[in-house]
């Protein structure tokens, strides 16, 4: 749930002089904004779907590293307050009953639209990942196993595929931590290659929330933390969803 951000200047009410730039967002009233508690955000976002597949579950393609770490965190969901974030084919499935702010509403709801990191259906071929979120610390862990369709350098994951998953993990974390919605800035420093089929662990933290913007950081490393694959940071704009009275 996030993507392109708007310039902060527009948010704060400076009417930009850029040719063709329309005033896209309503003025925010800080006093009333973002009233949803984290609990309600988590429960709204993480509601299990009765129809449609939840991709954040193990399948036959998951290697032993990924499986064992997954089970470790599953235990923590019972004891330490961690939440396993379900993952559906489209972000629309996460926000049933709600919709994007008016200016961001797309014209039609085509059923063949897919979340980028869930675009490759075949098990083990593309993105295999699951995100666990810790509400009290505003942090997430994402377990990532890249498949052969994500190749860049022969035998290794394309940097763009990692960038996309970091952005995606940022997005889920930002939303659950305070309705962060759109990426405004994204910075990534690549350090080492991730071999296809191996496990990479993304550690995401919310560093700061200020002026309707959320600042997040991510370190991607091997399970034993001996190899750092990449470091990234991102800035997200907070935007509350609107109630969708047309949906049942």
């Amino acid at each position: 749930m996030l993507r392109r951000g708007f310039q902060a200047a527009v948010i704060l009410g400076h009417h930009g002089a850029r040719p063709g730039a329309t005033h896209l967002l309503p003025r925010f009233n800080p006093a009333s904004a973002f009233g949803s508690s984290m609990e309600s955000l988590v429960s709204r976002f993480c509601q299990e779907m009765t129809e449609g597949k939840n991709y954040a579950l193990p399948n036959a393609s998951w290697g032993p590293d990924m499986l064992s770490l997954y089970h470790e965190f599953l235990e923590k969901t019972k004891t330490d307050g961690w939440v396993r974030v379900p993952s559906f084919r489209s972000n629309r499935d996460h926000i049933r009953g709600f919709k994007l702010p008016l200016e961001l509403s797309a014209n039609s709801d085509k059923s063949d639209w897919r979340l980028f990191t869930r675009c490759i259906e075949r098990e083990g071929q593309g993105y295999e990942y699951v995100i666990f979120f810790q509400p009290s610390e505003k942090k997430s862990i994402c377990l990532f196993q890249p498949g052969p369709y994500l190749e860049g350098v022969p035998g290794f994951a394309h940097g763009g595929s990692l960038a996309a998953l970091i952005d995606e993990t940022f997005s889920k974390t930002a939303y659950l931590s305070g309705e962060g919605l759109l990426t405004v800035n994204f910075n990534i420093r690549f350090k080492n290659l991730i071999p296809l089929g191996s496990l990479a662990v993304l550690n995401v933290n919310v560093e700061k929330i200020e002026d309707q913007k959320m600042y997040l950081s991510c370190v991607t490393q091997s399970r034993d933390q001996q190899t750092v694959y990449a470091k990234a940071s991102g800035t997200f704009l907070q935007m509350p969803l609107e109630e969708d009275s047309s949906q049942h």
Partner: protein
Amino acid sequence: MLRSCTAGLRSLWALCGRREGAPRLSTDLPPAPRLFSTEKVIHKDWSLPNPSWSKDFKLLFDQFMKKCEDGSWERLPSYKHRSTQKSEDFKTYFLEPKLVKEERVSQVQLFTRGFEDGLGFEYVIFSNNDEKRTVCLFQGGPYLQGIPGFLHGGAMATMIDTALGSCAAIPGGIVMTANLNINFKRPVPICSVVVINSQLDKLEGRKLFLSCNVRSVDEKTLYSEATGLFIKLDPEKSLT
């Protein structure tokens, strides 16, 4: 920051000779002749119009093909698979043998070409070697969604990486991404066409500093701006 290409610096994108998926090494080895039954599939050039391309996209494509006529611009072909020989060459030169898993070589495909027509990344890159800049025409399909109706930031980041990489490869040959910094200004609607203009800002030894902007076809909307640092690979040094 990067000190050398060996220990500190890795990453994904190796654009060999600026032809994605069909690398030519800087040592210019001729490909060993091989016969595969799927040879035609392997060598299909994906940077050519197909029915999923919108009218805008085709018009812009034709405009740039015209610019290629006098030789100042060049359209870069784009392949889904590297031939096995070329993959082997790359691994021999740049990677430690024990770290490369052999089993799944035949299943891999370049990330940005793993989709059916129109569903994922539809793009073509035109290169101006004298001016050291590239123009990438990109149409993002419905499988690249983030917020419903709009392109995923990560998909845009992947294309920016691709576009900057193609530009870095003009002077740099085989290059890899070190850093990317992207400022998103406006969300890009799914299935719209954008133009990514990339240029080389600075060259320092093996470090290439580039920047790009992403605009609508009529240039009135600025979707994002980005900078990147790429590293020219040294055939004497292993990456792993």
